[in-house]
């Protein structure tokens, strides 16, 4: 074989192997990449891992917000319509955080099934609900309906 053609072949083989590796690895990543978002029901039900950083979200329950008098510590409850999860957080809440609105808390679930949040995010547009919250709540609502029908 002409040496130039041989080199071109080597280069092409390198490119083909590299491209297939990229595709394969990305596909693996997409398949394996778990969802780190959990609904309150999943956390209370014990489906979510403990001592692992995760995110949970739902509607902030009306009247559940408690503030400490001497610090920035707050406690509130979020619900997905099935279960309520207690969230504790120390820090300034975002301005758009409000009871009856959706919020997302990131942190670690402790042994008492309380989410010790290191970050709280509120949705900031009335037309916009985080899709995973919306999905989770719709799912939960459906299940609830089914359960109700089942019990009847």
């Amino acid at each position, binding site marked *: 074989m002409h040496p130039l053609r041989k*080199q*071109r072949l080597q*280069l092409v083989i*390198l490119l083909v192997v*590299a*491209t297939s590796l*990229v595709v394969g690895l990305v596909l693996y990543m997409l398949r394996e*990449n*778990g969802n780190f978002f959990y609904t309150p029901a999943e956390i209370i039900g014990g489906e979510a891992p403990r001592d692992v950083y995760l995110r949970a979200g739902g509607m902030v329950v009306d009247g559940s917000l408690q503030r400490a008098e001497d610090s920035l510590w707050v406690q509130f409850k979020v619900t997905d319509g099935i279960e309520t999860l207690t969230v504790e957080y120390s820090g300034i809440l975002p301005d758009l955080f409000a009871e009856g609105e959706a919020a997302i808390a990131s942190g670690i679930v402790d042994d008492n099934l309380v989410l010790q949040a290191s970050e709280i995010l509120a949705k900031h547009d009335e037309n916009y609900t985080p899709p995973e919250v919306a999905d989770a709540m719709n799912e939960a609502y459906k299940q609830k309906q089914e359960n109700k029908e089942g019990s009847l």
Partner: protein
Amino acid sequence: MARQMDSGFLAWLRRDLLLAWRRRGEVASPVLFFIMVSTLIPLGLTPESTRLAEVAAGMVWVMALLATLLSVDGLFASDYQDGSLEQMLITPQLLPLPVLGKITAHWLTTGLPLTLVSPLLGLMLSLPAAGFIPLLWSLALGTACLSLIGAVGAALTVSLRKGGLLLTLLVMPLYMPVIIFGSASVSYAIDGINWLPPLAVLGALCAAAVALCPLAVAGALRATASN
């Protein structure tokens, strides 16, 4: 007596390895830098092992990045000065192949040693036990990416007298995904999450860099080194 020649990959790889062996003191300096700076972290940040453990993965990764950056500057510099680069540009071989040979030699002499000493650093920074294997794997793949991407920057700045700082500016933004997925795979392992997905992405980045960076380097060398 004309003979078939190889693609230039092995020839340049062998030569750069031999050269590195001849100046092993110099080649060891990124590794020394890597170790020295990590002794500063407990002094500067906190000697408390629980807090160190939190930042260990990220710190090791940032230092590996800086150490690679230190050495990648010289990847083409001496070849440019003594005329070897000129000879490389006029060999009949397809330029990406000798370029890949040089980059491989660079990784074998910087990235690989950094990877091999990283467990020591992990110990010094009280990295949790679960993080060691991912640290090794992610550094092995990640430093290869760093060498490949850094080579593009080195080629773009080879004919400039003060290319070092500019190289940093050019290359740093491109290093971003590598450091994210590299440190992510370690911290995932520590948090008890499946750490293979970020490692897979790192592998994908590495494969893409192997395919694309030698082409970019070849283009950059042709564009700048001959002027």
